[in-house]
């Protein structure tokens, strides 16, 4: 059974590119365009991996991550923060919120592809 990857971003073009990569690599691509939606989908679908933007409407990535990690049902999800906020303090904040990995935008689809395989296979 294919692994599920939930991509969360309010930028449709970025979401489009990420989903494309995920699908191309043979995983099931789930998407969410804001924080609330991301949490809902995560709780229902229990994805194996989440690519989480920070600056999202309704709920920021930090909060989404914290809630996911606080909920035993979703705490196991591997969370990769994929964000244009690349400063030191953002990384610290992300790890405080329980994020497993931090990836800065602009990202390379090639690197994302490679990382997906490393994490999911």
């Amino acid at each position, binding site marked *: 059974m294919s692994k599920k990857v939930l991509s969360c971003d309010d930028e449709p073009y970025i979401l489009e590119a990420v989903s494309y990569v995920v699908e191309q690599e043979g995983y099931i691509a789930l998407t969410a365009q804001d924080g609330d939606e991301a949490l809902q989908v995560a709780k229902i679908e229990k994805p194996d991996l989440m690519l989480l933007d920070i*600056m999202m*409407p309704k709920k920021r990535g930090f909060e989404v991550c914290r809630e996911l990690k606080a909920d035993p049902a979703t705490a196991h999800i591997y969370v990769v923060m994929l964000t244009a906020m690349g400063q030191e303090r953002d990384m610290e904040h992300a790890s405080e919120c329980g994020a497993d990995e931090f990836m800065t935008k602009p990202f*390379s689809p090639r690197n994302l592809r490679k990382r997906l395989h490393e994490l999911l296979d």
Partner: protein
Amino acid sequence: MSRLGITGKLVFGLALILAGLGTALTTQAVSQFGQFLRQQATERLEAQALNWIEANYWQMVVIGDQPTLSRLVRDLQVKSSVSYVILANSEGAVRAAIGVPAGLSQAVSRRGDFMGRRWTEVRDGAGVEYFELEMSIPSTGTGMSSDLESMFGLASQARPERLPQAAHLGWLRIGVDRRDFNSRLQVVVRNNALLAAGLVGLAVLASFFFARRTVQPIAEMGKAATSIAGGDLSLRVYRGVNHSDEVGDLVRNFNAMAARLEHNSYEMARFRAGLEQMVEERTRALEQAKRQLEERTLALQEANSKLEERDRAKSDYISTVSHELRTPLTSIKAHAELLMDSPDPSPPELERRLAIINESTDRLTRLIGDILDLRRIESGVELWKTADADLRPIVRGAAELLAPKANEKGICLSVSTPDEIWARVDADQVQRVITNLIGNAIQFCSRGDVIEVSLARAASAGPFGNREGNFALIRVADTGPGIPADEHARIFEPFQQAKKAPSVAAGAGLGLTISREIVLHHHGEIWVESQPGCGSSFQFTLPLTRRPAFAAAAQA
């Protein structure tokens, strides 16, 4: 005695001494004077008796009868003021007597000194005491003694052995009442005693005044010393200050000491007052300095916190700008790389990715342009092309510019500009504000919504400055989703829509911030009236100018 004081003690002592002395002296004087008086009295009586004998010798001898003798005896009693007189012959037989008190013996002792005189004290039956002189009546020695003796009836054999017979005719006894004799003495004694008492009193008085004179300055000094000890240094002693004795010296030295004390105390008080004033001044100066320092510290802290605030804001701003720039860049990078990695992309995919890349590039360009514009306006280096202009074409131009986009989205865009309104503005910048507002409205509105753009006159600049006057009011109202009240101010801050207003879609940026800066530059105000679900109404004002003459002429 302890309550008596020095004066009392001195006076008491002096009085005691003087009284003793006076008493002794008086006693001595009285005693001696008494003796003197007695002697004088006896001598006088003796002399009177002798005179009487001599004067009446012949009468006694020649006449010698009882009446004569009685008369003579009475004469003597009267002349010499004696109590009684007894005349006796040499045998002791009484020949004549007068005033002899009852109970007194009339016998003659026939004893006496070599002159036949003898003083005795006798007492009559009533107890009255008398001094009595018994003296012999001597014979004159003239050779008639035998006759006389015969006349007196004297017997030669009866003569006393101690007296020669020839020289002795008889005896005379004279008694003086001792009270009479003493009365003179008593007067003397009394007078003496009075004198002595007066002298003692005078002495006591004098000693009292003397003591007072000596002691009072000392007593006053004592009082003054008490006062000085109590803190009142102004007291001086005036009594005795002119005395030329040791007390005077003491008083003068005491006053000098008090004066020095007072002077020192005054100097000390002045010094202390000066010191206190100095301390107070220093304290005040220090307090002021402290206050100033605190104020400065506070000001510095404020300035520092403001700087920190600004620094943080700047840092946030840079962080946000960086984020905003990275977002379109991410799209470009991702889709470009996907294309590169796709060996044979299908034409639609190629077109799609190129379109995304193109649009993202435009967005990036716009963003960079906005950032630079805002920076230019905020730092005051923007070159404004200000001129008097009718606002109507500016508003209409902006609406026309965006009409196709509204049409495309199925939104009704209406414009109302009822009257010509002139203002001194940078037409391009004002149009940019209106374009921004309409663009935002289109972005947040959905198909079927309505956007109304209107130009009107207003009597106030807006809700913030409370300024009244002639203003143009430009309003862009839509029937879109609306904005919560707590975000009305925030949406004019850079990137705030994207960051904090998650209810709207992406695409916010610096539009409203730049619009606000432009309006503020024109001394207008910009604000939004909106409620979620009831649409939004963005409004801004611009101060009006009178229609320029050339424009009026051109129109005419």
